[in-house]
C-alpha cells in the first residue's frame, strides 16, 4: 500500500513536530532518557556476562530448572487466558457503558498494582486455602486445591497481572469510534455481531498488548506465587532457592536462562500479534 492519495494531508513526519524544534529540550530529554535506558540495560548485560560457560552448561543440564521454567510459562499462559476471558468483557463495560460506581470499579481493577505482592499472596491464601470461603467448597465439589498447585500459581499470577489486560483493553475499546458501531447496526448487524466483528477487531491491538503485559508480568511474579505455592516451584522461586542455597553464580546462570527464554517468547508473541500486516491499521 503506497501513501494515501490525499493531497491535502500534512506529510506524516510533520504531524508530530511542534512549530519550532525545541532542540535544547530534546537534548536534555535524550540525556535523561539515555540514563534511564542504561539503568535498565546495564544490569541485564552484567547478569548475562556473569555466569561462566561451564556453569551455564551445568544449569542447562539441570532437569528441575527446565521443569520450573515450563511451569512458569504454562501458568502464565493460563493466567493470560483467564485474564482475557474475564478482563476483556469488564473493559468493554468500563469503556462503553455508564453505570453507578464505575469509577469505583475502575479503582478496584487497579488495586492489585498497589498491593504488595506478598500481601496479595496471603490474602489469596486466606480465601483460596483449604479452609477459605472459596478454597473449601472448590476442594469439596471439584477437588480443586489452590495451595501448592498449578491452580494456586495461576490465581496468584492472575491477581497481580490482570489490571494490565483490563486497562489496555479499555483504552482500546474507548479508541473505537462509536459511530462505526452505529453504522454497523444500520447495516444490519445486531449488537453481538457489531461487538464481535467491528469493535473487538478494532480494539485488537490494545487487547493483545494488555495480554502480553499480563503474560510477561505473570512469568516474573515471585511474591504472591511463593506464598500460595512454594512447591511446585516456578522459575523465579527456583532461582531464589538457588540464590539462598547455592550462591550467586548458580543463581545467575539460572537467571540468564529464564531471561533468555522469556525474552524470546515475549518477542515471538509480539511478532505474532503485531508483526504480520493487518493492512491499513499497521504503520506503513
Amino acid at each position: 500500500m503506497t501513501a494515501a492519495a490525499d493531497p491535502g494531508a500534512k506529510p506524516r513526519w510533520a504531524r508530530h513536530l511542534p512549530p519550532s524544534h525545541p532542540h535544547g529540550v530534546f537534548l536534555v530529554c535524550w540525556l535523561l532518557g539515555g540514563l534511564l535506558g542504561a539503568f535498565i540495560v546495564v544490569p541485564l548485560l552484567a547478569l548475562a556476562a556473569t555466569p561462566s560457560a561451564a556453569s551455564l552448561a551445568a544449569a542447562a543440564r539441570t532437569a528441575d530448572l527446565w521443569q520450573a521454567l515450563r511451569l512458569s510459562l504454562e501458568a502464565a499462559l493460563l493466567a493470560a487466558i483467564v485474564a482475557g476471558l474475564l478482563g476483556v468483557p469488564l473493559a468493554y463495560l468500563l469503556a462503553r457503558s455508564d453505570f453507578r460506581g464505575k469509577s469505583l470499579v475502575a479503582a478496584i481493577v487497579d488495586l492489585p498494582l498497589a498491593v504488595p505482592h506478598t500481601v496479595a499472596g496471603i490474602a489469596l491464601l486466606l480465601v483460596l486455602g483449604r479452609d477459605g470461603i472459596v478454597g473449601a467448597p472448590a476442594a469439596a465439589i471439584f477437588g480443586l486445591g489452590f495451595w501448592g498447585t498449578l491452580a494456586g500459581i495461576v490465581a496468584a499470577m492472575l491477581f497481580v497481572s490482570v489490571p494490565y489486560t483490563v486497562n489496555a483493553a479499555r483504552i482500546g475499546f474507548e479508541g473505537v469510534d462509536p459511530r462505526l458501531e452505529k453504522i454497523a447496526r444500520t447495516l444490519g448487524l445486531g449488537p453481538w455481531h457489531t461487538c464481535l466483528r467491528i469493535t473487538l477487531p478494532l480494539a485488537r491491538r490494545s487487547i493483545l498488548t494488555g495480554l502480553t503485559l499480563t503474560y510477561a508480568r505473570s512469568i516474573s511474579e515471585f511474591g504472591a506465587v511463593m506464598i500460595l505455592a512454594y512447591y511446585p516451584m516456578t522459575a523465579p522461586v527456583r532461582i531464589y532457592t538457588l540464590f539462598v542455597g547455592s550462591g550467586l553464580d548458580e543463581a545467575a546462570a539460572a537467571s540468564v536462562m529464564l531471561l533468555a527464554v522469556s525474552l524470546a517468547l515475549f518477542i515471538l508473541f509480539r511478532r505474532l500479534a503485531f508483526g504480520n500486516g493487518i493492512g491499513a491499521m499497521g504503520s506503513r
Partner: protein
Amino acid sequence: MTAGIVAVENLSLRLGAFALKQLDFAVAPGEILAILGPNGAGKSVTLETIAGFHRLDRGRITIGGREVTRLPPERRNIGLLFQDFGLFPHLTVAANIGVGLRRPRRRLPRRSLAELLADLGIAHLARRHPAALSPGEKQRVALARALATEPDLFLFDEPFSALDAQTRERLRGDLEKFLRSAGVPAIFVTHDHDDALALADRIMILRDGAIVQSGPAATVFAAPADRFVAEFVGFDNILPGRIAGRSGDVLTVAVADQLIDVAAANVADGCARAVWLCIRAEDIDLHPSRHAHGAGARLAARVVVLRDAGMLTRIVLDCGFPLQVCAMARHVREMGLTIGAEIGAGLMPGAVHVIPIGEPATDPVAAFNDASEC
C-alpha cells in the same frame, strides 16, 4: 428498493437536559430533506432517533411505509453516513461492503457485490483498505456499502464537514447524482448553507429541539419565518421597523427616519405594527445619486466602513441606521467610493423580506381597514 414515504409524527424525546419537541415531518420518495440548525439544536439527535439509537417518549416513525418506532437500528432498513464516511478501517473495501450483504434477517440483495462495485466505479479498489482511499473514493465506498442493503432511507450526518471547499463541492455533486438516481429519500444534517441549498429539496430548521420553519429550500432562505431563522439563513441586515402605510401590495415601512417601500403581500396587517425588515447585503445596489429612478426605494446613505474581501467589498452605510452592503470590488472601484461619500442605496421591493413581530390582528378586514387609515 421500496419506494415508500418516510414519516415522523409527533416525535418527542428527552435526553438529560435536552428534549426533542413534537417533531412532525415527512420525506417523499426521492426527496432530499436538509435539517439545519445551530449547534445543540438537536439535529444529530433527530437523525439518530430516526436511525433507532434513542427510545422515543412519544411519537411514531414510519420508514418505507413500515412502522419502525420500536425496531432496533439493524431492522429499520436505513443507510447511515457520517462526515468521515465511517468505513471500517480493519476491513478491505470489498469486506466493508460485504458487511451489509451478509445480513441474516434480510431478503437477498438484488445486486451482487461485483455489480455494486462496478456501478459505482470502485471495482479497482475492492482489495484496498480505507486508509489508502481518497475522500471521493471513500464516499463512493460508503455509499456502495449503504446501497448494498437496499435501504428505504439514507441518513447523512454532516457528510462534508471534514473536507476542503473544492473537494466538498465535487463530492456534493457526486452525492446529488447518486441520490437522484437511487430514488431513495434522504435526510441530511448540516450547518452549511451551501450544502443545504445545493442538495436539499426541502429544509427544516431546528432550534432547541423544535422545528421553527420548514419548506422548500429557496423559500426558507428567501422568506424566513422569524428573526432567528433570518439570522440563521444569513440575512446581514435585520432592521426594526414600523408599518407606516400600504398601497396594494406595496407596504411602506419606517426604519429610523427613512421610509422604505417593500413588496409584502404576505403581511396583511395593521398600521403602526412593528416588523423586522430583512435584507441581504448582496441585494443592495449602490448608486452615485440619492434620487430614485423607477421602481424600488432609494435611501440616502453615507459610507462609514469599506473593507476589502477579495473579489467583494464589504461596506457599512449610515442611513440613519447601519446597513451592511456587499458589492463587487470592481464596481466599488469604478464608483470611486471613499469613506464619507454621500451615495444612494437602492432596494428593489423584492429584495426586502418583512417579518411581523408579535401576534397578527385576528380580523383581516379590520386589519385592512387599519392599514388603509394610515
